[in-house]
């Protein structure tokens, strides 16, 4: 079974700082996805990374994919309070999706 590991599990950071969330997976995959989940809410798609070297950016978030290292990163630039949420990466092989454990991010004013 494909394993997906995220770290850190919990992240508390000050506004204005930068940080990176890491997502490692154990075997080759078709696609890598990043989701955001606010407390008590559903999962919202942030990025879909299709191939090695893919980089996507939206506002203060940037995601990248290194398929050789089986690693994806989600970089947060100059964090703001609105980014507080839980972030999940997910890897797809065929029809099956495997989710990471999630990173609970708290941005402190």
């Amino acid at each position: 079974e494909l394993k997906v590991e995220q770290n850190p599990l919990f992240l508390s950071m000050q506004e204005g700082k930068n940080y990176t969330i890491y997502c490692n997976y154990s075997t080759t995959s078709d696609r890598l996805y990043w989701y955001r989940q606010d407390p008590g809410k559903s999962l919202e798609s942030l990025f879909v990374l299709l191939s090695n070297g893919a980089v996507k950016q939206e506002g203060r978030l940037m995601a990248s994919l290194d398929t050789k290292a089986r690693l994806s990163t989600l970089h947060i630039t100059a964090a703001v309070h609105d980014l507080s949420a839980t972030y999940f990466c997910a890897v797809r092989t065929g029809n099956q999706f495997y989710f990471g454990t999630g990173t609970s991010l708290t941005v402190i004013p």
Partner: protein
Amino acid sequence: DTAVSQTPKYLVTQMGNDKSIKCEQNLGHDTMYWYKQDSKKFLKIMFSYNNKELIINETVPNRFSPKSPDKAHLNLHINSLELGDSAVYFCASRLQGLAGNNEQFFGPGTRLTVL
């Protein structure tokens, strides 16, 4: 104009009861999923259907039975509810195929509490 909808949003019931959760998508997708999210927020896939055919059936108790009357609907029936079934259940859908992102779209979730 909701994409993936679930009913009910909240479900509180006694142990031993039987309950159902319904999911509908209006995105024209052909593949639907049920996930369970536990109190630690861990997401685990339970079932998936493609065009009404069961394609993923993970190790879940056989008290859980999915039903897909058509490709826009996927329901989840749970018999003899247990305390450990308390969780948030998410439905999701996507369009299969080699092209495109093939990303999943999630419903709002059903918070099940078993007393």
